[in-house]
C-alpha cells in the first residue's frame, strides 16, 4: 500500500472543484486512459484577469485525484502569470509530498496547467521539433527534459517516476539517458562545427571564464579540487591548481585531458592550458 500523506487522503476522499466549467477561458486534456491516468482542467477568469474558478475531471489513482484537486485550489485567485509559475513540485508540496513512484501525478497536473494556459493565450502547445521518446506512454523529449531540469533528476528510474517514460517496454532507456546526459553536459552539438566565428579577445576571455565556471569547476570540485584562471596570453591559458588538484599526481593529466579538452571543444581549438605556480 502506498504511503499517502493525510492531505493526499483528504483531497482524494473529498476532492475539491470536480466538474467542467462551461465556456472556460482555459481548457486542457492530458494523459489517456491507456496510460492509466487522464486529467481535464478548465478555468475561468474574473474581470480583473484573476482565476475565479478552476475545475477538474480525473481518471486515475488516489494521488492523481488529489493532485488535480490540489491544483484547482492553488489556481484560484491567481493571475495567469502567477499560475504559470506553479510547478509539479509545488503541487506535491501542497499535498505534503507524494511517494516517488507517484510524482508523475503532479507532473500531469502541471502539464494540464501549461496546456490550459497555452489554450487561453491561443498559442500552440506542440513544439515543432518534439520527438516521442517513450512510445508506451507517449512522452516527448521536451517533456522529459523539462522534468529533468525542474526536478534535478539524474537517473532513468526517477524520470520514469516523474513522467512514466521508460516504464513500459524499456526500449527507450538509452534515449532517456542521453537526455539526462544532455541536460547536465551542456555540450550543444550545434556549437561544435569547425567553421566557428573568430572570437575577439574579450569574447574569448569571457567564454573561457564561463566554461571554467560552468563546465570545469563543478567536476573538479566534485573530486575536492579546483583551479584559478591566472592569465590568458594569446592562446595560452594559464591556470593555478587548488585544493586536491594542487597535490594530485594526476593533475597534469586532468589539465590536459579534461580542462584543455573542454576549452578546445567549447571555446577555441587553438587553446593550450599551462600550469603556473600560484
Amino acid at each position, binding site marked *: 500500500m502506498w504511503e499517502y500523506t493525510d492531505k493526499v487522503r483528504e483531497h482524494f*476522499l473529498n*476532492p475539491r472543484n*470536480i466538474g467542467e466549467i462551461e465556456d472556460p477561458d482555459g481548457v486542457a486534456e492530458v494523459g489517456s*486512459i491507456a496510460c492509466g491516468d487522464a486529467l*481535464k482542467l478548465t478555468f475561468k477568469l474574473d474581470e480583473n484577469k484573476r482565476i475565479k474558478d478552476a475545475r477538474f475531471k480525473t481518471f*486515475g489513482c488516489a494521488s492523481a*485525484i488529489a493532485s488535480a484537486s490540489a491544483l484547482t485550489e492553488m489556481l484560484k485567485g491567481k493571475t495567469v502569470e502567477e499560475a504559470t509559475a506553479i510547478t509539479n513540485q509545488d503541487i506535491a508540496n501542497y499535498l505534503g509530498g507524494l511517494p516517488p513512484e507517484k510524482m508523475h501525478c503532479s507532473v500531469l497536473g502541471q502539464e494540464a496547467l501549461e496546456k490550459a494556459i497555452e489554450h487561453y493565450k491561443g498559442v500552440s502547445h506542440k513544439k515543432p521539433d518534439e520527438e516521442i521518446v517513450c512510445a508506451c506512454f507517449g512522452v516527448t523529449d521536451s517533456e522529459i527534459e523539462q522534468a529533468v531540469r525542474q526536478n534535478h533528476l539524474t537517473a532513468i528510474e526517477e524520470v520514469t517516476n516523474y513522467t512514466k517514460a521508460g516504464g*513500459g517496454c524499456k526500449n527507450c532507456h538509452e534515449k532517456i539517458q542521453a537526455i539526462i546526459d544532455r541536460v547536465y553536459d551542456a555540450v550543444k552539438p550545434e556549437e561544435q562545427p569547425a567553421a566557428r566565428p573568430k572570437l575577439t579577445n574579450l569574447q574569448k576571455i569571457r567564454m573561457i571564464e564561463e566554461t571554467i565556471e560552468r563546465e570545469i569547476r563543478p567536476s573538479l570540485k566534485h573530486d575536492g579540487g579546483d583551479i584559478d584562471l591566472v592569465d590568458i596570453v594569446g592562446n595560452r591559458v594559464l591556470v593555478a591548481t587548488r585544493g586536491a588538484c594542487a597535490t594530485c599526481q594526476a593533475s597534469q593529466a586532468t589539465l590536459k585531458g579534461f580542462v584543455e579538452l573542454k576549452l578546445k571543444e567549447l571555446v577555441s581549438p587553438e587553446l593550450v592550458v599551462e600550469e603556473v605556480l600560484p
Partner: protein
Amino acid sequence: MKTIYLDNNATTMVAPEVLEEMLPYFSQYYGNPSSMHSFGGQVAKKISEAREKTASLIGAEPDEIIFTSCGTESDNTAILSALDVNPGRRHIVTTRVEHPAVKVLCEHLAEKGYLITTLEVDSEGSLNMEQYENSLTSDTAVVSIMWANNETGVIFPVERTAQLAREKGALFHTDAVQAVGKIPIDMKNNAINMLSFSGHKLHAQKGMGVLYARRGTRFSPHLIGGHQEKGRRGGTENTPAIIGLGKACELAGQNLIEENGRIRELRNRLESKILNLIPNVKVNGGQPNRLPNTSNISFEFVEGESILLLLDQYGICASSGSACTSGSLQPSHVLRAMGVPYTMAHGSIRFSLSVYNTVEEIDFVINTLPPVIEKLRNMSPYWTTDQGVCKNL
C-alpha cells in the same frame, strides 16, 4: 470498523485450529527433529504426521512432499531441477499469465540462453491448446503451466497438458498455489511431475511452501546442505509452520465441499448483483471453469486503486490489476494477455473469498460498491451519465 476480507488469493487468515496446533512447537517442543534424543524425536513424529496430511490433500505419497519456505521457492526449485536433470534439453514452455515466481524466472533463464515458448491465452483466459501442442519438441526440458490463475481464477487443463508433455519426454511442473485447497486434486490420476503450493493461501502461516515431486521423477535440489527432506531441500525444518500446514491441509480437505458449494454461491451472488446494479461492468475470465472463490470484475472508466481505497474506508479488502496497484506503470500482465481493453483493465478488481466469509459480508459489499463506482465515474472525464447510472439495492 469490521474488516471484510475478500483478498484470500493474496493471503489468508491463519485458522484458529492451525494456530493452536502450532503454538506448543515454539517454546515447549522446540527440539530439532534431526536430534538423537526423544525431545527432538517427538517433533520428528509430528512432522511426519503433517507430511501425511499434506500428501493426503492432493492424493500424493508422503515421500513425494518436500517442505520449502514459500511458493516461489517451490516454483524455482522445480524448474531449475528439471533443467538440471535434462542438461541436453534447452527449451521451456510456459504461459503469458504465470505468477512472477515462474514468469520472471523464465525471463531470467531466457537471458541465460534457454529458449522459452510463452503460450497465449484467449479473451476468456483459456490456454491456446493448439499452440501448446505445436510448441513441444524433443528439446523441451520442462513445461510449467499454472493449475489456476491467481487473478482470474481460470483453471487450466494441466492434467491433459501434462500427459502431452510426458509423451514428448519433457517434465511437467504446475504452480498450484491457488488451486490446492480450493478444488479437488488427486496426483494419482495424472502425469504431473512436480507441483508447487503455499501454506498461507490455505489458512496456514506465511513462509511455508510445498513442492510435490513424483516418485521416479529425477530431482536436483536447489538449497543444498543438510539431509533434511531426504537431501532434496537442506535447512532445519520450520517445525511450527510444517505442523500448522498439516492441520491446514486437513481442514482444507474437509472444507472442499463448502468451498465448492456455499462459497461458490456467495461468489456468484456477488458477481450477479454487481453486474445487475452497475452498468459497464465485465467479469474477466468469467467462464464456468474457474476457482469457486475468485471473481475479477472490471468497472469501465474508473481506476482500480481509487476503488480499493474507497472500499478501504468501509473495511473492505480486495485487490486490483490496475497499473497503480501493481507497482509498475502497466496494468496486470494477465489482463493484457487476455486482451482486456485499457478502459477495463485499469478498473479491474479481484474479490477472492474464503470459507470465513458470510452472506452478510457479501451483501454489505453489494450495497457499498455502487455509490463508490458512481462517485469515481462522476469525476472521470470519460464517463457521461447517459451511459447509465448505478442502481442501489
